């Protein structure tokens, strides 16, 4: 089927389930009565509020500044009044501070956020200006990890990035948000890519699209035609083709070194949605205040792709699309790597790609590993998940270290395929966490020993 298309070694192909929403154009979700703008949108330090309770804000106005270099600014998703600043449930299951905004219904833009540059002027900007506009717009990776984009665009001088890759794989089942963006806004994706290529001084930009999305590939191909240095390529339909390192391997045949970053392989990977956000930020001065979210799953009444403001809650999405009888699980993101949610008050983040409502599966009771080797064959990081799983089961964390547990990308292929239904990824995540704690403890011990006698260690 996809013989000959570029890919990586390993992986699997779960049922795609994209037919539920792939042909439904993006719809705009009306602004709800309250928005919860989390200060912890992604990886990095939380943002610091710059507005007070009761203050009137307008759409696109800065409401929280970045809390450090690896952090992103936050902007009001609509016009209204700051009702409160306080705790709010977070998709990882903990709580984080958020700014709650009560919309006034006018949805008026802040003047700072309406600086139309025009296409030519935007494409003529230099690298530094592009990065600063991206940083000011609070853009983070919209594929899920939500890493601040300006950080990725500012590699240390000794790391030369020659290729920018746009990730249009969307290899997670159910999700179609990126697909719809590729169909509906291919021009902006490509213009965003031109800015990204320029921002890091790369010589070429490649858009990678899985072969199950030929229409998207065709539209993007039409847009890149005639643009120097840009191309759009099909890659094999295989999960996790959209994982950064696996996509670089497929398109460039380079491996990101263990423990390294894409820049160590001379590459920068951005999601197609992020590219649109970059173009909007640079050409129109518009900060990131909305994104497309796929709402799908067997237990959603009307699946769809919704353009919604950052800060609408999962409950708002459920209310808008309806829930079917038998709903038992709420997943933020895709079914392979997404996070199960227990609280519908969790807001949509800049990195929220989907919301799935699934029924209850027969609880997969796990049995002993029968050594079938499916996990070893499927592991895109070329690990031995069978060995890691028995070590995890026995809580033998240090041994996991010897078997390269830190190279695991937690894609879930091993666990998806396991006929013994072993929660391998769960044990691996736990192992990584335990190893981190062990390291912290060991460092503290070391400090204690090195401290001069009689001086109490802190």
């Amino acid at each position, binding site marked *: 089927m996809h013989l000959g298309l570029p890919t990586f070694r390993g992986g699997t192909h779960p049922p795609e389930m994209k037919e539920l929403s792939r042909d439904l154009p993006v719809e705009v979700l009306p602004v709800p009565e309250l928005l919860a703008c989390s200060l912890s949108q992604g990886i990095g330090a939380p943002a610091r509020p710059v507005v007070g309770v009761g203050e009137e804000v307008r759409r696109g106005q800065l409401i929280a500044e970045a809390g450090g270099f690896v952090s992103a600014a936050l902007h009001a998703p609509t016009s209204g009044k700051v009702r409160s600043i306080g705790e709010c449930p977070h998709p990882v299951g903990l709580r984080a501070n958020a700014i709650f905004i009560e919309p006034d219904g006018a949805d008026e833009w802040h003047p700072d956020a309406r600086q139309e540059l025009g296409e030519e002027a935007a494409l003529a900007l230099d690298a530094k200006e592009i990065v600063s506009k991206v940083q000011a717009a609070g853009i983070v990776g919209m594929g899920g990890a939500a890493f601040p984009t300006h950080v990725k665009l500012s590699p240390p001088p000794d790391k030369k990035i020659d290729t920018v890759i746009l990730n249009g794989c969307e290899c997670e*089942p159910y999700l179609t948000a990126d697909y719809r963006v590729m169909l509906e806004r291919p021009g902006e994706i490509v213009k965003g890519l031109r800015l990204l290529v320029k921002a890091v001084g790369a010589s070429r930009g490649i858009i990678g699209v899985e072969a199950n999305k030929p229409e998207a590939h065709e539209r993007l191909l039409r847009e890149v035609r005639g643009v120097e240095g840009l191309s759009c390529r099909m890659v094999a339909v295989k999960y996790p083709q959209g994982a950064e*390192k696996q996509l670089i*391997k497929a398109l460039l045949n380079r*491996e990101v*070194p*263990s*423990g*390294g970053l894409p820049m160590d392989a001379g590459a920068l990977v951005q999601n197609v949605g992020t590219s649109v956000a970059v173009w909007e930020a640079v050409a129109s001065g518009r900060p990131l205040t909305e994104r497309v979210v796929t709402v799908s799953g067997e237990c959603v009444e009307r699946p769809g792709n919704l353009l919604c403001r950052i800060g609408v809650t999962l409950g708002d999405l*459920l*209310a808008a699309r*309806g*829930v*079917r009888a*038998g*709903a*038992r*699980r*709420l997943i933020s993101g895709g*079914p*392979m*790597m*997404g*996070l*199960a*949610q*227990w609280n*519908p008050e969790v807001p949509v983040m800049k990195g929220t790609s989907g919301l*799935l409502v*699934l029924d*209850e*599966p027969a609880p*997969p009771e796990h*049995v*002993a590993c*029968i*050594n*079938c*080797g499916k*996990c*070893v*064959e499927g592991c895109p*990081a*070329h*690990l*031995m998940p*069978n060995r890691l799983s028995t070590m995890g089961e026995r809580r033998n964390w240090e041994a996991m270290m*010897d*078997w*390269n547990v830190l*190279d695991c990308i937690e894609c879930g292929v091993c*666990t*998806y*395929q*396991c*006929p*013994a*239904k072993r*929660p391998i*990824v*769960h044990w691996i995540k736990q192992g990584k966490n335990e190893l981190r704690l062990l390291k912290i403890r060991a460092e503290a011990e070391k400090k204690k020993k090195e401290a001069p006698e009689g001086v109490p260690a802190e």
Partner: protein
Amino acid sequence: MSPESKNGIPNVPDKWLVTTSPHVRSPETVSQIMWTVVLALLPACVAGLVVFGWYAGLIMAIGVLSAMASEAVVQRVMRRPVTVSDGSAAVTGLLLALCLPADCSWYVPVVGSFVAIFIGKQVFGGLGRNYFNPALIGRAFLQFAFPDQLSMSKWKMLMRKPLLESLAGNIFNVGSGPVAEAMSAATPLATIKPPFPHGEMAADITPLEAVGRSLHNTAEDPWDVVRDLGLGNIPGCIGEVSKLALLLGGLILIANRYVNWRLPLAYILTAVTVALLLPVKSGGEWYGLWAGQWNVVGQLAVIHLLSGGLFLGAFYMITDMVTSPTTGRGQVIYGIAAGVLVALIRVYGGYPEGVCYSILLVNAGRLLIEKYSVPRVFGTSSGKA
């Protein structure tokens, strides 16, 4: 679960179920794999029935049922969950029965199944935790417990008609069953067992002629002998004789990706190649490859390939998931190691056939082979850090 939750959305449960990723799982289960292996063994079972008659079917049934019963009893006594329905005991019992002679006593598979399940599997902790192939543990035990019944050089051979003809005979002419033609004959591997000359293997005839003579007491066209070897019209144990049936089942396993084709291929090719390479003398003279007798080499290759338990072992036993390495390279090394052992036993050892012991021996080296064949971790230049 209330139909209407407090925020007014119908069908939203009071509590959402929180699970760890991935939230979808492939439908494949362990018992599905095990029962597929049983299914893949059916062609060999049918061939065994056709070649050896109804008593072979009884031995197979006793093997399966006694293995399942042993599993249930042992698990009950050991206070473990009873997992007979997962099909793994059925696979063990069937495999054991398939490597028994068709005329063994009814209690032979019973004893063998018990040893296979108890000592071969449950003592180690049950399915997935055993280091040796349980069916072969049972088989090795029976070899010593009932040496007369499991003589490896003389086996029952119940008929000498071509397979299709005898199948038709069995179906349409039940009364005059094949038992009437029962006889005992040397196996092809016993016939070509060095040192020469001995028995049929005289200096002036080729290996295929010798095998043909031992089977039918007449010198036949060598191609008839090859056909008999392939279809199963030869003496041997119940499940090993029909290479065609075993290949068919093996392809089912490969198509289902329960068997990596590299492992049986490495095993079979190595066994045959090394068996030919090992120097052998006949009447004080070099024989075969070392004497440049290419016709003999070709005939020996065919006999080594299509005789004994090589196919049964290659597709169903050495490929047992639990006891074989999971790495691709490891499987090839494993197959080669076992193949060398088969050849050594066949040519120099005390038995004409060495499949059972070759697999049990490499079972012991499985973890070692796996350890030194781990794949290169993505983004590194080596495997294990």
